[in-house]
C-alpha cells in the first residue's frame, strides 16, 4: 500500500529548510518554492554528496601543510624560532598549563582529523546504501556540526599572541604560513558539514521499511 510511506519525500512533499513548512510541488516537479517563505525547495540538498566530498578532500589536502608549516614565528634578540601547531601544544605543556595544552591538542589536531574521517565515513556509508547504525550515524553528524567551530581556537590563540607580543627589538611574534592552511581546514570542514544532508543517512532504511 502506498500509504506506508513514512518520509515527506515518499509522500512527494518538500520540507522547507528555512521555515519547516511541508508543501506539495506541482505534478512531476522536482523543485518548487515554499509558499510561506519563498525559499527554493528540493527533496534533498542539491548535490549534497559531491559537494561534501569536494570539501572533505580539500580539507584533507590542507590538513598536511597545516600541521607541517609553522603557525607562529618568534623573533628575539638571540634569533628566531618557528613553531608548528604540535610544537605549540608541547610548549604550552607545563605543570599549570597542561589543561590548556590538552584543549589546544583536542581542538587543533584531534577534532579536524576526526571530522574529516567521520564525514568520509558518513559519505561512504550513504553511498553504499547502508541501513545499519542509523542512530549512531546521525548522532555522529550532530557532533561534527556542533564541535566544528571549536577548532577555530588555535586561529584566535595565534592571532592574539601575534598582536600582543610586538616588543621590537626585544621580542616579536609573527603568524606563519601554516595558519592559512589551518584556517582553511576549519572552514572547509564546516562547509562540508553544512553541505551534507543527514536525511540521506535514513533514505535507504526508509525505502526498506516501506517495501516490507
Amino acid at each position: 500500500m502506498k500509504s506506508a510511506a513514512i518520509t515527506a519525500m515518499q509522500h512527494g512533499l518538500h520540507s522547507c529548510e528555512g521555515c519547516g513548512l511541508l508543501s506539495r510541488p506541482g505534478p512531476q516537479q522536482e523543485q518548487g518554492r515554499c509558499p510561506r517563505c519563498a525559499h527554493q525547495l528540493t527533496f534533498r540538498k542539491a548535490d549534497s554528496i559531491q559537494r561534501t566530498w569536494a570539501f572533505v578532500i580539500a580539507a584533507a589536502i590542507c590538513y598536511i601543510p597545516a600541521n607541517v608549516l609553522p603557525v607562529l614565528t618568534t623573533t628575539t634578540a638571540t634569533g628566531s624560532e618557528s613553531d608548528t601547531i604540535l610544537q605549540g601544544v608541547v610548549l604550552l605543556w607545563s605543570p599549570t598549563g597542561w589543561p590548556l595544552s590538552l584543549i589546544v591538542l583536542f581542538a587543533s589536531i584531534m577534532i579536524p582529523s576526526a571530522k574529516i574521517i567521520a564525514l568520509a565515513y558518513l559519505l561512504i556509508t550513504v553511498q553504499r546504501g547502508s541501513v545499519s547504525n542509523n542512530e549512531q550515524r546521525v548522532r555522529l553528524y550532530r557532533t561534527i556540526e556542533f564541535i566544528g567551530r571549536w577548532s577555530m581556537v588555535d586561529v584566535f590563540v595565534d592571532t592574539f599572541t601575534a598582536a600582543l607580543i610586538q616588543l621590537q627589538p626585544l621580542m616579536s611574534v609573527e603568524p606563519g604560513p601554516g595558519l592559512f592552511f589551518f584556517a582553511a581546514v576549519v572552514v572547509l570542514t564546516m562547509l562540508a558539514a553544512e553541505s551534507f544532508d543527514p536525511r540521506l543517512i535514513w533514505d535507504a532504511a526508509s525505502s526498506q521499511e516501506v517495501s516490507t
Partner: protein
Amino acid sequence: MVLTRLDQESYRQTYNQPLADRSLISCPHCDLMQRLPDLAPGASARCARCNLELWRRREDSLNRTLALAIGAALLYAVANSVPMLGLTVVGREAFTTVLGGAQHLWEDGRETVAALVLFTAIIAPALQIGFMLAIVLGARRQPVPRWVGFLLRHHRITHTWSMIEVMMLGVLVALIKIADYATVIPGLALFVLGALVFVLAGMQSSFDAREVWERIEWADARAAQAAADCNDG
C-alpha cells in the same frame, strides 16, 4: 480575465501547495513525517525516529529575546571599543582590541586569515545580534512582515559563524602563553566579552522561531488564504 489566468499559471509553477494540516512536519535530520503536538510553554517535542528536538515552545519568547538582544548589543558595543588585553614587560606596554588582532594579521600579510577572524569575531556576531533585534521587533507587527522571514532564514548562518565563545577560549589560552614572557593585563573588553557569551547563549535559547513563522505573512497570499479557509472549515 486573461490576466488572472496567467497569474494562476505562474503561481502553479513557482509556489508549492501547502498542506491543509500545518501541525504535520517532517524531521529535518531524517525526513520522518510526524504531527507536532500542541506543547505547553517550556515543553519540547522530539523526532520519534532520530530523537532530534523538533520544537521547544518558549515562554514569553519575543519579550525575553528582545531584552537579551538589547543587552547583547550594548555589551557588543563596549567589547569592541575598549582594550581587551594588555601586557607590560620591562617598562613597555602594549594593548590590543579584538579588531586590533585582525588588523595585525592583515598587516603581517595574512589577509585571508585576518578576514576570517574579522568575520567570525566581529561581523558575524554583529549580524547575529542585529538580525535577532530586527526579527523580534518586526514580529510584533500583525501580520509579521515578509522581510522578517528573510532575516530568520539567514539568522542560522550568522549563528553558525559567530564565534565569540571560541574566541574567548583562544584569548584565555593566548593569555596563559604570554604570561610566561610578560605581565598580562586583562582589559575591560575581556570581561564584557565573557558576559556577552552567556547573554548570546540566552538570546538564542529564549527564541522560538516556529512562533514567528506561524504568524508571518506568506509569500503566496492565495495559498495562505486557502490554508486559513481550511483551518476555519
